[in-house]
């Protein structure tokens, strides 16, 4: 078993309210001690973390790795390596792969690939309905047993509300969290931009607020009635934040996340038909962006995720409405989160909690803290390093990012997964 000594780092561990300069000792796969070395501890490897931050490894609530099914875009090896490089030690994968994650064999396949790759760990969400078709329930208990941390129908609409209600009842029976991408497909009506002045000027098919908010309202009622534990994914509107806040104050067992790009971009960013800013849900107004930031600092939104969607170049080389939505975002998750701190929009501890402890808690996994005895998933950051994001230098196979050319402070210097330096 290997033993590692990380010395002189600033240890920031929001779960334990720790923020101090101290040494951290890893024994095998777990954190052995912080502060004084355990009796008889002899390190085989020492990392000098002077002037560095030592934080829990990042947990990303939503990353599409494109395998199985779309290996021409990316694969588990390429994306888990990119994630590890970006300080992300666990990724959560939605079930809309091909084949869909609706049976244990697919979960096994993904876990085998991830283990063979040896980089970031993968948590999988199982399909809420068979083949994501919204007709029959998936074998939820079997999926849970196979290791799925939750269930979701991804962005696939379920037409029949009765199916949703029964799915939630059945998930509640087995104490499984459901992950909801709130979107009413009829109201979205194949739109590609926020319904407002910019979409009107550009003549882009619009997506109204109600496509998200009407869906949230509907799901909240079923959550209240069934008692299922639910997580709302990728909020995009100010009203959504209000609704989640109200539902939480009613005592519902819910949580919510926001994609990092929603905290930095608005509808204005598509105004030159910039397909790199084609995302779903769409970029909304300045007011919405500020409400999302506020929701995060107020704890209404629990987590920031990457919503990673790597694409081949051709996917973005078309007129805006015909391009595929999504950003290759693993490598901008930490930088964009730290930028909120730099700009005074979020305190450092909350920012780190929102990409470590909070998502781990939502997934119910043993990660996101630097407690003694915890799995040693650790990210070490040089907070003084200034750098510029360049699409061509990204590790992900998807080079599709609207953040190329952005300047950031703070960069990952080391990532440790299961006690092993990557």
């Amino acid at each position: 078993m290997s033993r590692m000594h990380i010395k002189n780092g600033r240890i920031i561990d929001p779960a334990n309210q720790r923020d101090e300069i101290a040494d951290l000792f890893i024994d095998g796969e777990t954190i052995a001690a912080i502060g004084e070395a355990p009796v008889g501890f002899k390190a085989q490897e020492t990392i000098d973390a002077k002037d560095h931050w030592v934080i829990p490894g990042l947990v990303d609530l939503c990353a599409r790795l494109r395998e199985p099914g779309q290996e021409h875009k990316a694969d588990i090896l390429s994306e888990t390596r990119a994630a590890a490089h970006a300080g992300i030690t666990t990724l959560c994968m939605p079930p809309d792969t091909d084949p869909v994650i609706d049976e244990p064999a697919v979960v096994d396949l993904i876990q085998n690939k991830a283990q063979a790759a040896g980089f970031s760990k993968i948590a999988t969400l199982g399909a809420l309905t068979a083949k994501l078709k919204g007709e029959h329930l998936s074998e939820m208990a079997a999926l849970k047993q196979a290791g799925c941390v939750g269930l979701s129908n991804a962005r696939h609409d379920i037409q029949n509300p009765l199916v949703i209600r029964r799915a939630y009842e059945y998930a509640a029976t087995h104490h499984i969290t459901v992950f909801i991408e709130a979107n009413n497909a009829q109201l979205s009506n194949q739109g590609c931009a926020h319904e407002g002045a910019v979409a009107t000027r550009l003549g882009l098919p619009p997506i109204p607020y109600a496509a998200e908010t009407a869906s949230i309202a509907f799901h909240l009622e079923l959550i209240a009635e069934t008692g299922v534990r639910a997580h709302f994914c990728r909020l995009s509107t100010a009203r959504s934040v209000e609704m989640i806040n109200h539902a939480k104050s009613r005592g519902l067992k819910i949580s919510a996340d926001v994609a990092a790009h929603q905290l930095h971009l608005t509808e204005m960013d598509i105004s030159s038909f910039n397909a790199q800013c084609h995302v779903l849900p769409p970029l909304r107004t300045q007011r919405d962006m500020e409400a999302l930031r506020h929701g995060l600092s107020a704890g209404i939104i629990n987590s920031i995720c990457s919503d990673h969607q790597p694409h081949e170049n051709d996917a973005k080389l078309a007129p805006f409405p015909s391009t595929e939505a999504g950003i290759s975002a693993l490598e901008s998750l930490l930088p964009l989160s730290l930028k909120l701190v730099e700009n005074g929009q979020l305190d450092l501890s909350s920012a780190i909690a929102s990409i470590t402890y909070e998502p781990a808690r939502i997934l119910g996994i043993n990660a996101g803290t630097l407690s003694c005895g915890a799995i040693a998933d650790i990210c070490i950051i040089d907070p003084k390093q200034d750098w510029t994001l360049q699409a061509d230098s990204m590790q992900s196979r998807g080079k599709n990012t609207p953040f190329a050319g952005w300047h950031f402070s703070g960069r990952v210097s080391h990532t440790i997964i299961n006690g092993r330096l990557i």
Partner: protein
Amino acid sequence: MVNKATRPADPFIGQDLWNIQLQNGQLKHFLTIEGLGSDMLTQILDTAESFAGVNESVKKVPLLRGKTIVNLFFEASTRTRTTFELAAKRLSADVLNINISTSATSKGESLLDTLHNLQAMQCDMFIVRHADSGTAHFIANHVAPHISVLNAGDGRHSHPTQAMLDMFTIRRNKGADFGGLRVAIVGDILHSRVARSQIHALNTLNTGDVRVVAPRTLLPKGIEQMGVSVYHDLQEGIKDADVVIMLRLQKERMSGALLPSEQEYFQLYGLTEETFAAAKDDAIVMHPGPINRGVEIASSIADGPHSVILDQVTYGIAVRMAVMSMTLGHNGKREAQA
């Protein structure tokens, strides 16, 4: 072989909002009215005025001899394609008509492939119509630098030559000063690239009062931010108007639950002798065509003394000749300098 000077990745990366239509202040592409000043629009109108004579008597000038112009239509069109073709021929250019059904090439990859193939045939100009908003900009961003792109309609975004022929028609009928004019655009604003381009053009030319008239289901959100006042009642909306522009109502709007029926639409928004009485006595009626008689406009109005609908078609040739010669003329200058 890797050529480091050319960048295969998306050229939009790091691109700021710059107006690719203009090069050194000259018109290089014609993609949208937005971003062009009143002097540029006036120059187009003046140039069109000089070609209007060519249309009527001489029929042909050698201005674009040796140039190859490609009509690249991904969406059906008769009028626009024909007038572009006529305009090109009257300028002595060679014209290639290519109609590609959108279903066959709905992916950007094949769109780019199509472009690259045509480019390899030494074309000088692409005239593009496509169902996706932003297509003309996309193509202008990806063609070889010697090629000009003219937008013949992209999705709901823009149809700038139509807007300019409409401005030409208004100027011929109402004079060059738009300041005192009240212009009402009536009908399906939501899906209309023509309306969007007209609104930009009218506002750039300092039109006194620009109005849109439609039920809420046919108005895009935030339209007033484009510089129009919004009316839901036809008679109120066209009251004392100098110009009434009727838009075509597509039949499929009924199935999309945007309207209850053609009958109710005609009753509320159809331009008839009775409703048109609200406009000024010398008001003109325009329509980008093709018209739906008895849906948005009564035959007595469409064929009546106030209608300039057929003049619009005629002027369309002169305006398109103007835009073609301005964009390619600029190319000629550049080549001469090089």
